[in-house]
């Protein structure tokens, strides 16, 4: 068993190690020991970061410099675009797109002789012939990491490292020195609102459950991150799983629950594996179990895997899924805080929400409430994706503007293209335009503009994106994910999708736009759960802000972005065509004919518009018209 004093001992022991993992500004010659952090998040693991960890260890052993460097596989650094990413402390040198073949040189030049390996240095860190530390780059300097704390500085699979980084101190403080009411009050005063999409005050939710006089209560962590394009919950579980476990135990103490569940997507194997490992370690230290820290407080956590149903992100649907049924929502009230899992009082908090809790307990409600705006406190993690230079994960204070996130942190639009729209809130959110770029990011502003914060997906679109097609994409998603229980959502989304299909095929009428708007409002007003209530948002916001594009599809049968297949055709520019015959050979429908060395021609009647000719042409002679 680990008592508070044992935790302190671990902290003292491991502190030195963590001290080395920050930027100190030492001169290269004076550095005795370096920490090589390799990103082990899903993005970088996909680009083979595990092989990089192995190669680093092997090379360090070869040169027998284990006393000069450590290799740590950490959670996500955020800049997935440049993966696999390796950061070397204490200088804060940032290597991007590292390959296994670079490792011998990195180890010899940098770790042995102290000279950074030029070839893989992140371009943004170069300035006037010098190499800056990564925290000074545009991507990192405006970020404030609370929920993503420890992601990138500790090994998530080693509990002692989390403990050394003040881990489980908040749990100790809560059990030893605070009453449950004080904990609830602290969370309430911090102003923390649910990060999963609802935006409900977390402390209030806890208070409702705490007030129920029942023997059995539950704490559920919602890690069923179904919003396409959002991956912050996964990254937190991968990079800092103990923070979520600690927060759940704190929640358990606050509301009087002794059992927790993490409901996590089965599609996240690395996150599940690290979470399981963390739970085992926490149990071994008796930070979970029948006698937490020797105080008599009882709390344990089980893991339940989701099975790919977006609607299970909805609280009541999630509860039914854990109960072993089809994940269909039920009307609220009764709210889960009163009658939830197996009819007992239950609180459900999202991963990111929970990851903030230990820091709020340690630093105080006032500290947290001092960050952000009046009604949206703290920070929010966003997953930047789509047509943006720096795709990845960023954590910023609430109240920052869309422009700062997209153009300063995100680096703007690649390939010199023009910004067209930003989609926030996933399938429940909406698309915002250039005129909104200076609006602040907080729950209420985004909702008032017809979008929403959602879980924090932020997809950037450029001039090559068709907004009608985007609306169709989301409706196709929600139609498919509608559980079918209530009619407005089940049938309404299908009808809405049919209208959108009609428009993308050039068969729409202007009346269809009115029909879509009125149908959308009906779906919003009469659906049972948030899935249906928000499903029309992508349609409504694109009609509101990009009506011109809809009209072009309808009256001119044109897709201005060149995306909608029925409205485009392919042609070969006779001037540019070199007659190489590649397109004709690749065409699956034999629609291209011609003689070698002479311009080829596409026979429109047999063209299936698969776009293979456009992709394969080396001379850019195939045009979309």
């Amino acid at each position, binding site marked *: 068993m680990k008592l508070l004093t044992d935790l302190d001992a671990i902290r003292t022991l491991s502190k030195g190690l963590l001290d080395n993992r920050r930027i100190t500004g030492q001169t290269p010659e004076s550095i005795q020991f370096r920490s090589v952090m390799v990103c082990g998040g899903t*993005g970088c693991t996909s*680009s083979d970061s595990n092989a990089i960890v192995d190669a680093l260890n092997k090379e360090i052993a070869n040169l027998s410099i284990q006393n000069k460097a450590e290799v740590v596989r950490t959670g996500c650094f955020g800049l997935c675009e440049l993966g696999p990413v390796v950061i070397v402390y204490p200088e804060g040198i940032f290597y991007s797109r590292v390959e296994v073949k670079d490792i011998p040189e990195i180890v010899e030049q940098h770790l042995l002789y102290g000279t950074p390996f030029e070839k893989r240095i992140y371009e943004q860190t170069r300035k006037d012939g010098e190499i800056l530390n990564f925290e000074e780059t545009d991507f990192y300097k405006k970020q404030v990491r609370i929920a993503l704390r420890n992601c990138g500085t500790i090994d998530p699979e080693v509990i002692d490292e989390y403990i050394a980084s003040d881990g489980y101190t908040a749990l100790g403080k809560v059990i030893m020195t605070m009453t449950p009411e004080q904990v609830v009050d602290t969370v309430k005063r911090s102003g923390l609102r649910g990060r999963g999409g609802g935006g409900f005050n977390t402390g209030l939710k806890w208070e409702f459950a705490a007030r129920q006089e029942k023997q059995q209560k539950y704490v559920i962590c919602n890690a069923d991150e179904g919003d396409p*394009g959002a991956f912050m919950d996964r990254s937190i579980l991968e990079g800092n799983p103990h923070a979520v476990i600690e927060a759940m135990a704190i929640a358990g103490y606050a509301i009087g629950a002794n059992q927790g569940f993490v409901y996590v997507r089965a599609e996240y194997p690395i996150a599940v594996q690290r979470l399981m490992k963390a739970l085992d370690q926490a149990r071994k230290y008796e930070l979970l179990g029948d006698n937490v820290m020797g105080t008599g407080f009882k709390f344990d956590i089980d893991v339940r895997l989701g099975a790919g149903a977006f609607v299970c992100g909805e609280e009541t649907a999630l509860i039914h899924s854990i109960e072993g049924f089809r994940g269909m929502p039920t009307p609220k009230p009764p709210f889960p805080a009163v009658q939830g899992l197996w009819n007992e009082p239950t609180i459900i908090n999202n991963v990111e929400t929970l990851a903030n809790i230990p820091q709020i307990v340690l630093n105080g409600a006032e500290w947290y409430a001092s960050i952000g705006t009046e009604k949206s406190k703290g920070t929010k993690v966003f997953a930047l994706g789509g047509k943006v230079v720096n795709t990845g994960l960023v954590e910023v204070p609430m109240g920052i503007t869309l422009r700062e996130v997209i153009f300063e942190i995100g680096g703007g639009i690649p390939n010199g293209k023009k910004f067209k729209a930003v989609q926030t809130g996933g399938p429940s959110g909406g698309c915002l335009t250039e005129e909104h770029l200076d609006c602040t990011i907080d729950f209420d502003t985004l909702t008032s503009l017809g979008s929403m914060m959602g879980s924090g997906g932020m997809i950037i679109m450029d001039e090559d994106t068709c907004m009608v097609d*985007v609306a169709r994409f989301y409706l196709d998603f929600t139609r498919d994910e509608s559980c079918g229980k209530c009619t407005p959502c089940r049938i309404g989304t299908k009808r809405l999708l049919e209208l959108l299909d009609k428009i993308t095929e050039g068969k729409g009428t202007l009346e269809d736009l009115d029909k879509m708007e009125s149908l959308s409002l009906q779906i919003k007003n009469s659906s049972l759960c948030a899935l249906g209530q928000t499903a029309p948002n992508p349609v409504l916001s694109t009609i509101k802000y990009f009506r011109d594009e809809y009209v072009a599809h309808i009256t001119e049968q044109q897709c201005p972005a060149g995306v909608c297949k029925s409205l485009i055709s392919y042609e070969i520019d006779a001037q540019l065509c070199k007659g190489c015959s590649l397109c004709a050979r690749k065409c699956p429908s034999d629609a291209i004919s011609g003689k070698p060395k002479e311009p080829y021609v596409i026979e429109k009647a047999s063209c299936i518009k698969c776009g293979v000719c456009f*992709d394969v042409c080396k001379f850019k002679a195939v045009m979309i018209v």
Partner: protein
Amino acid sequence: MEEQLAFGCGHTAEAEIDEKLEKIEAAIEQFRTIKGALIPVLHEVQDVYGYLPEKILQIVSRALNLPMSEIYGVASFYHFFSLTPKGDNIIRVCMGTACYIKGAQALLDRFSTELKVPVQGTTEDNKFTLEATRCLGACGLAPVLTIGEKVHGRLVPNNVPKILKEY
């Protein structure tokens, strides 16, 4: 094919059935006492067999004392579970928003053309199943797809023939 393997004749196949069945029985034993055991057990069946064979679901039905109708209701509700066998290699093209914006549809279409199967279809030789999948969360590598455990990222349709040759 899976079906034949599981219930056909021959020593290896039988040994394999037993091994698979044992895993399922162990899972049933492990979860039997907990509330809401069905979904964890179905996960195990899917993991061991690659899909949910009807005969195994009947075993689950008896062991957990749940009617087949209820099991079918649950199994058909969740995307993750499949009631039909799949090809040896499952190509999962991510259709999350970030990938879609970066051309995942063209990628999916190209696979469909090259393999001559529709989306969710399996090739005649049973080598590939083509699937459009929900966000894989590797948006930094968009457009991205997985074949088995391997992730392929930052793709254009022209990469498709080369990827297929690897299998």
